[in-house]
């Protein structure tokens, strides 16, 4: 793994940690969704649906409308019923 990629991951994880610390679930959902979409793009399906799931749960908790959209993605991939 290149140094640039490690730095980018650290930066994402730090953003996520800060979002949790601030209890900013909207941002948490945004970060997980972004990670999931990037994973899909990279062909890493398992990581992608793990991250979509994370995004979905926090979107549900925060009552965010985006939860419907994520649910449809999970449903289509047979990860939800």
């Amino acid at each position: 793994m290149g140094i640039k990629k490690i730095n980018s991951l650290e930066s994402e994880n730090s953003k996520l940690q800060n979002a949790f610390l601030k209890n900013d679930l909207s941002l948490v959902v945004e970060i997980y969704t972004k990670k999931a979409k990037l994973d899909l793009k990279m062909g890493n399906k398992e990581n992608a649906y793990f991250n979509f799931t994370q995004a979905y749960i926090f979107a549900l908790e925060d009552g965010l409308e985006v939860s419907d959209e994520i649910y449809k993605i999970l449903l289509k991939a047979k990860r939800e019923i």
Partner: protein
Amino acid sequence: MCSDLSKVNLPISKANGLPNSHYIDEQVFQKEKECLLYDNWSGVAFEHDVVNPGDALPLNLLGFPLLIVRDYTNQICVYQNVCRHRGMILVEEKKNIRGTIRCPYHSWSYNLDGSLRATPHIGGPGYNHHKDLNKKSLRLKKIRSYVYLGVIFVNISDSAEPFEKTNCSLMSRWSEFNKPLFSCKNYSSFQLELKCNWKLAVENFCESYHLPWVHPELNVVSKLEDHYNIESKDQFSGQGSYHYTQISDNGRVFVDFENLSESWKTGAEYIALYPNVLLGVHRDHIFSVILQPISKDFTLERVNIFYASSRSINKDYSKLREDNFLFWKSVLSEDIFVVEGMQKGRYGKFFDGGRFSPAMDGPTHNFHGWVANQYSA
């Protein structure tokens, strides 16, 4: 643990009160937790403790974890505050829930109607379902609840008759007060700590015999002879007064409930609704008291005053509300030394439960009879 209750249900002229063990024995206390509090309709919170949709209040009744929620249709629901997965407490602190109730352990998520909405990674990472688990069968355990006079009642064991049936006599007696109630943040609620068994607070509240001695200032405005006993077997007991005088501030008095009968213009009633709620009604306000047992000899007494009209909670009435608040706080605080004194007295091993005044102690005798009957129910 077996106590002799045979003398409790004798006619009042021959009866003895509950034996000491019902106040000081841990095993009896645990038994009463089940048969008095869990098997009946117990008061646990006030309606305004969850005032906004999404408000969630965790509390426990002698260890039983409850979650009180006001859902998005404005209905109050009570659940066992425990996740169906690993038994984790779902909500630890009062908060407003914007979406689902998420278990902090593995994030099983529940809708406010108690249905299980999501089970993340339950079929492995990224797989949120599993053929062997049916979400529909894993709702939060709903606890029966009912709101009456601003108090949220629960029947934990699910064994009681419907609230309206159990308490039909009181609801009928006080039907004129079954109207919207108004409360505000200032000078509406207070809490007292009682170093006694919760039943002693019930017993003291429901009789007027002690008024001239413990509340001499009350006796000036409402004498002992102005009072009458109220007894309804297996439901409630208390006392009424024919002589209620409204407090006033330069001629200003609280606004009355609408369409009250004439008798309520000067009447007031104070009733212990078994097991643990104390209620007082007057033409212009009511108060509700929840006795929260903490241990066999420690009780929290939560008091809230409600007004008959929204006008009475306006700023113009703040002085009057303060006076009313201080009045009731003073009266109820005056009772602390007697309930705590009776608790200490229960360690006198030669005390036999006491003999009643046949004329004055009917309401207490009625309560003791109810307690005894719960053992055989």
